[in-house]
């Protein structure tokens, strides 16, 4: 049996860039706390908002799981108010996660707050890693990532750090054996297009989720092999399996 929602303690909840928070929670579990690409559902409220909110694992050290989140609405705003020792209810780990069994040169490409699963993936992959990270302006977590990767490429939209522009402008697929990406849908679309049919590419999809555990079909997306639930068969899919619409 899996545990349902469990109340966990917050270790820290810090704003590391404007509206971007790093949240560490203390979990207790005999089972795995999760793999790169997996996520947890959060709730720190009763009925308002009604639904829980999904967040990807950014790191795990011992029993401490780290998340990064951006304030975009009411749920994330509530989260940002939590202080150490406050309680949070979490369900997870959920979803599939990335295939870690890869060889050769891997490109990890993140856009905006799509970065958390790429960070944990960088830590967990045991192959050559080239980390592409696109930010709006403020850059964060690159010191940490540094330790695990061969090279970091950064873009910012305002050019304040790294190259000015989007990360997909500088990503050149030719030299890689496998590509992983997480970020806004148009960005992932571009990454997949750039990889053409040459390189295996894995994407972590987003979708509005009600349950996070496969029951509501709210998160379903169309793939080349039928309808799939982002929360259950995903969030990681083979990039050419999915359709990016926008």
């Amino acid at each position: 049996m899996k545990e349902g929602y469990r109340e966990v303690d917050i270790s820290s909840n810090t704003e590391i860039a404007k509206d971007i928070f790093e949240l560490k929670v203390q979990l207790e579990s005999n089972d795995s706390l999760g793999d790169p690409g997996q996520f947890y559902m959060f709730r720190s409220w009763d009925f308002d908002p009604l639904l829980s909110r999904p967040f990807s694992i950014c790191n795990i050290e011992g029993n401490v799981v780290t998340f990064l989140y951006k304030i975009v609405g009411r749920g994330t705003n509530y989260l940002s108010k939590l202080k150490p020792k406050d309680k949070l209810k979490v369900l997870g780990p959920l979803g599939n996660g990335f295939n870690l069994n890869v060889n050769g040169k891997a490109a990890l490409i993140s856009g905006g707050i799509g970065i958390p699963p790429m960070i944990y993936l960088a830590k967990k992959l045991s192959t050559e890693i080239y980390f592409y990270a696109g930010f709006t302006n403020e850059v964060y977590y690159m010191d940490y990532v540094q330790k695990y990767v061969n090279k970091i490429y950064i873009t910012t939209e305002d050019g304040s750090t790294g190259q000015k522009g989007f990360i997909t402008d500088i990503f050149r697929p030719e030299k890689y054996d496998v590509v992983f990406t997480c970020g806004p849908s148009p960005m992932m679309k571009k990454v997949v297009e750039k990889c053409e049919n040459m390189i295996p590419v894995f994407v972590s999809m987003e979708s509005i989720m009600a349950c996070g555990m496969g029951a509501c079909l709210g998160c379903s997306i169309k793939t080349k092999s039928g309808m799939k639930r982002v929360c259950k068969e995903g969030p990681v899919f083979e990039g050419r399996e999915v359709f990016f619409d926008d």
Partner: protein
Amino acid sequence: MIDTKVKIAGVEFKNPVIAASGTFGFGREFLEYFPISKLGGLSTKGLTLREREGNKGVRIHETIGGIMNSIGLQNPGIDAFIVEELPFLNSQDTVIIANVSGNTIEEYVISVEKLNQTEIDMIELNISCPNVKEGGISFGTKAEIASNVVTQVRKVCQKPLIVKLSPSAENIVEMAESCVEAGADALSLVNTFPALAIDISKKKAIFDNITAGLSGPCIKPIALRMVYEVSKAVDVPVIGIGGIMDYRDVIEYIMAGAWAVQVGTANFINPNACAEIIEGIEEYLQKEGISTLEEIRGII
């Protein structure tokens, strides 16, 4: 000794808590969290004659105290259900209810005929579907139209038949009465409320279909009123649905006249919701010195 058993249309439920259609899949996902044989029953995701991909665009939108959904009956179709899901469901010690949807009377009838051949325990007819032959207005709005589909289905249906009412029925009591007259062994209500939400920055409806179905605690007071009115009017068992979050809500439904209840949206915010509700009911009855649900059913 507390006894939460309830018998509806000859079928015995070990307790009055049924997982609501469309909110519990085919049970597999929940089995990871608790033994689903704890449930009184389980109503499957809405089944249609043929496989459906469901709707495009946004499928879930949160409102204050509720959610709107426009899943569009994504399901594998009756045949695939019978082969791939039913054996698993039948292996679980709980009442299995096939929730059947259709866009024409013929679809309903053929689906039910297929289910007749199986070991499904009961059939729940979802009449909140658009009737394509009548310009898409729901079967569940007008009593005459609902009565017609129930009559046709009853003719072929060899299983106990629950008819699930829509809260947009023009007159919920008349609707209930005519479904019973047409052969329903039990009624369940309510399905989701037709509702609208608009994305003011895009200046468009949130959902591709414009409207979508509202569920969750926000609808409970209205749904409870409907269950109360219908329970008083008909003499078949009524199954209360709408916004149940905890055992107290269930007790309200029972006191309003329901024989059993279905729990929907709550499953999304807590996969153990049904299990916790079942325990809560038992503890409540114990504490209050009530030994059967009959003692409080319709007591208000």
